[in-house]
Structures are given as structure tokens and as C-alpha cells.
């Protein structure tokens, strides 16, 4: 391995160590499925690795990866053509069960999961990654107005569909 490659890999590894947990969480919120999240992130990191020398501004790497992840998540419709299922006599070693509470958080998550992918990406980037409207619009390649309208619709859906009794402000508002 050349010194240049070694330095490049060291720099990339440092980025992985520092940012991977956060990126995994974002991927999970985008996909709603742990295995898909890992799949999306692995592909995104592979693409980032290939493009590492081209991403000149290291401060923008996160934005670059987020964009790849959003595109990868949206591209699952293409993967159906590429993937084939094979019969096997070997059972998976363990079942994955996604455990979570049954209260307000679950109700909100249910609503988020029903959002179209584009709207869901807007919600995750705005309210989890806490990007600004302009940053979200730039990353998704849409207008700020579209970001606002998608957020507005998502919040309206929350108000409409989350049971009132789960709302912490419910009792106070009723008084």
C-alpha cells in the first residue's frame, strides 16, 4: 500500500469512527428498517470511499453522504430488479425484533413511517438532523417552499392522527 493510500484510508477511517453512528441513525429514520438502513449506509459509504478524493471540502462530507443516503433509499425500487432471492436450507441465525414503547413516540413514529419517502426525508433532515429549511432544500434538490409545505403536511398529519390522550398537553388544554 502506498503512503498516499495509507493516509487516505486513515483519514477515511477517522471519519467512519466519528460519524458512522450518527449516519446509521439517520439511515434508520429514513428507511424505517434496521437492515435496510445498514444496506443503504454500506452502499453510501462505498460510494463515499470512491469519491473521497473528490470531496474537497471536508466540512461538507456529511451533507454529501446524506444526499447519497436519500438517493439510495429512494432507489430501492431499482434494487428489486437487481436482487434475486435464493432458496436456502440454512435458517437465519436470529430474528430481529424492533422493540419500542407503545406510547406517544410509537404513535408519532407510525405517522412518520406512513409519509411518502420525499416527505419523510424532509422530516428526518429537518427535525432529526436539525438542518435549516434552506439546507434541507439544497440537499434534496427541492425548493424551500416545498420543504415548508412538506413539513406543514407532516405536522398536520401528526395533529390529526396521534391520539389526543397520548399528547402530554392534552389534559391542560382540556381544562
Amino acid at each position, binding site marked *: 500500500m502506498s503512503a498516499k493510500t495509507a493516509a487516505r*484510508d486513515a483519514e*477515511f*477511517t477517522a471519519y*467512519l469512527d466519528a460519524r*458512522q*453512528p450518527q449516519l*446509521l*441513525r*439517520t439511515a*434508520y*429514520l429514513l428507511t424505517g428498517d*434496521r437492515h435496510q*438502513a*445498514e444496506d443503504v*449506509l*454500506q*452502499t453510501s*459509504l*462505498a*460510494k463515499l*470511499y*470512491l*469519491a473521497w478524493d*473528490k470531496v474537497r471540502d471536508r466540512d461538507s462530507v456529511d451533507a*454529501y453522504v446524506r444526499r*447519497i443516503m436519500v*438517493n439510495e433509499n*429512494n*432507489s430501492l*425500487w*431499482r434494487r*428489486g*430488479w*437487481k436482487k434475486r432471492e435464493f432458496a436456502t436450507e440454512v435458517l437465519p441465525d436470529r430474528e430481529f425484533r*424492533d422493540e*419500542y414503547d407503545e406510547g*406517544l*413516540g410509537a404513535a*408519532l*413514529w407510525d405517522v*412518520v413511517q406512513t409519509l411518502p*419517502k*420525499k416527505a419523510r426525508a424532509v*422530516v*428526518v433532515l429537518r*427535525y*432529526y438532523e436539525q438542518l435549516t429549511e434552506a439546507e434541507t432544500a439544497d440537499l*434534496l*434538490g*427541492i425548493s424551500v417552499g*416545498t420543504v415548508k409545505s412538506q413539513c406543514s403536511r*407532516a*405536522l398536520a398529519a*401528526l*395533529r390529526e392522527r*396521534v391520539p389526543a390522550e397520548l*399528547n*402530554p*398537553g392534552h389534559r*391542560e388544554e382540556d381544562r
Partner: protein
Amino acid sequence: MSDPEQLLRDALQDRAERTSYDATPLADVESGAYRLRRRRRTVGAALTAAAAVVVVVVPLAVVAAQDPETVPAPAPTTTPSVPTPTTTPTTPAPSGGPPQIAYAEGDRIHEPGGRVFQLPRDLGVSGFVAYRGGYLVADARYFEGSVGLTRYDAGGRAVASWTSAGRPVSSADGLVTTWTSFAPPESGTTAPTLVHVASSTGDGPEVTQELDLIQPSVVGMVGVDVVIEGGFGAGGVWATDLVSAPRRIEVLDRATDVSDAQGLIAGSVDQDAIGRVVDAATGEVLWERQGVTVSAFSPDGRYAVATASQGGRREIVEARTGEVLAEVKASGEEHFPTLLELTWEDDGHLLGDLAFNCCAHLGRVDLDGNITPARPRGEIGGTGFVFAATS
């Protein structure tokens, strides 16, 4: 509901924090990157094998004609006539050997290996890709920006036809094919203007998206995005993943080619006066040059072809910087052929449609710009050549 935005923040944060993950080590990332690099090449080979298996059990309706100049011996009757995928081959093209990618001449599509796919009607060919065992062919019935697009099955039968613009294009790995369709204004009928993306082998769904564009044409695919030129009206260059609304690539007025390998789009602004190469992901203009058209990225995306607006001089340039690497030694001057179309045969060679002494010739251009015949001397064509379009 009390501050739904804060509730949403808290819920997402909590949800994300509670879920555990297995971190991906660098070795796995490198392995994934390696697979991405190799995919376009290995998939092409796999598709060839798969197509051959299918065809052995399917009765052939048409016996493909042999090209006597390029095939030394008759093929056995069980040899499949299904077109070879139009992806770029992995092995370097032999100097002076027959073309290693499919090309059309008149109503015949010449496949690598010497087989000839005969189209049932001579409507001309302006573009084509291997599709569902046969071909998707844009003909030369050019009218007010539109052309006819016909799908031919493996037996050479026309099984579907649309009005389109431009030409169909396959993804770099050959797995996916994309094209546009619309109702021509002169037909008096109405139909949505659509961009289509479908599995090239026909074993997956066809996905469409309605476009608010007039007679758009496909330029190519970068990642999951289809890059489209807007045609009449709004025009412009657009990218869509067929899920979100198409987004305009503001820094280009027209687009000529894409490189999926490098994530690049070539095009122009200011009525084609300035050629540009743009990073497809960021929209950053990597370089631009007055008075040239940039087109034809090599399969690995390292090189492109720049054509001078005046004089038609062709240069092989470094795709990301525009640095001139070589001038193609064909200038249209006396004793030199005129280059009409260039496409990459592999990462080190281009195929050229050459006009010389009133005849069409097929030539091979190396990275130093030297031209050698790609078909035996004396074998000339009268109609010119068209090459398969791959992202």
C-alpha cells in the same frame, strides 16, 4: 397538541438512540467500493451468459444473418441470436479487429462477434439499446423534434411502438433502460409525457413518471437519476429519480452525455457557445470552455471528447479538468476523413463514423488520436453508423 415540532424532534431522537447497529469496518467499505467498481463489467458478462441460457430453450423465429467479413466460420444453429448487451467490454479492443460494441448500419445491427440483427423495415436508426432479448430502436423518422421508437423482440418482430425524442439509453451496468414517450402534437391525440425506466432483461417492473416538459429526451443515467433534456418550451436539463419531482440542473441549458462512473454531466450553455462538465451530485461546474461541445465520456469516466464549434476539431480531454490529452487526427481537410460521430469502445479506444471520399467508414481512434480502420479495407458503408447508447 403542544408544540408538535418539539414532540417530533424528541420522538425521532429517542427512536434513533434506542436502536442498535453494527458498525461497518473499513474493510467492508472497501469491499463494497470494489464491487461497485466491478459491477458494470461483471454484470455485462453475467447478462450475456443468462441470455444465452434463455435462448437455447426458445425456438428462434429468425436465423440471424452472418457477417461474412468478420466471422470466419458459420456458427452452429444452436448459437443464440439474442443481442449481446451493449455494455462496454472488459478486454481492450484488438487493433484492427472488428468493433467490440454493437453498431447499426442502415437496417442492420451488427453485434460483437459478427452476428447481424436484421430490422424488418428500413426506417433508419438514430439510436438503439439491447432490450428484453431484442432491441429498442429509435428510428430516423425525425419530425419536429420527435422520432419513432420501436421495440423489437429476439426474433426481429416489432412488438410495440411509441413517439419519442432522442434515443433510448441503458445504464452503465446494462441492467436498466430508459426512454421517453409522448403524443406528438400533430397527432391530435393527448397522452401524458412520460419518462420510462425498465429492466433491460424484462424481468422487473417498468416505472414511469409524468413530465411537465414538451418532447423531452433522455441523456443518460447517473446513479438512480435519469438526466433529461427538456426539449421545447421550458427546455433545460433535468434530473429525476422517478420518485421525487424532477429537479432542474440550472448550470446547463443542454446536455450531451453523462458518466455514471464519475457522476458527471456534459452539456452547454449560452446557445451551445460554452461547453461545460458538471458534477451531477453537487451541480458544481468543474470546467468550461468557449467554443466547444463536450460529449462522449469514456466508460470509466476519465476521458471525454471535445469538439470545436468551428472546424470540427476533435480532442480527447481529461473529463474532470478539461486538459487536452490528444487531438484526433481527422480534420476534414484533404486526404483526411471527417468524423461524424464518436463513441467509446472501451476505456482506451473510440469508434468513429468517418466520412471520406463520399463514403462512410468505421474507424478506431486510440488515446493518442490515431485512426485505424475498424473493418476490413474495401468494406464501406453508404449510410453511416450509429452506436448503442450507454450511460
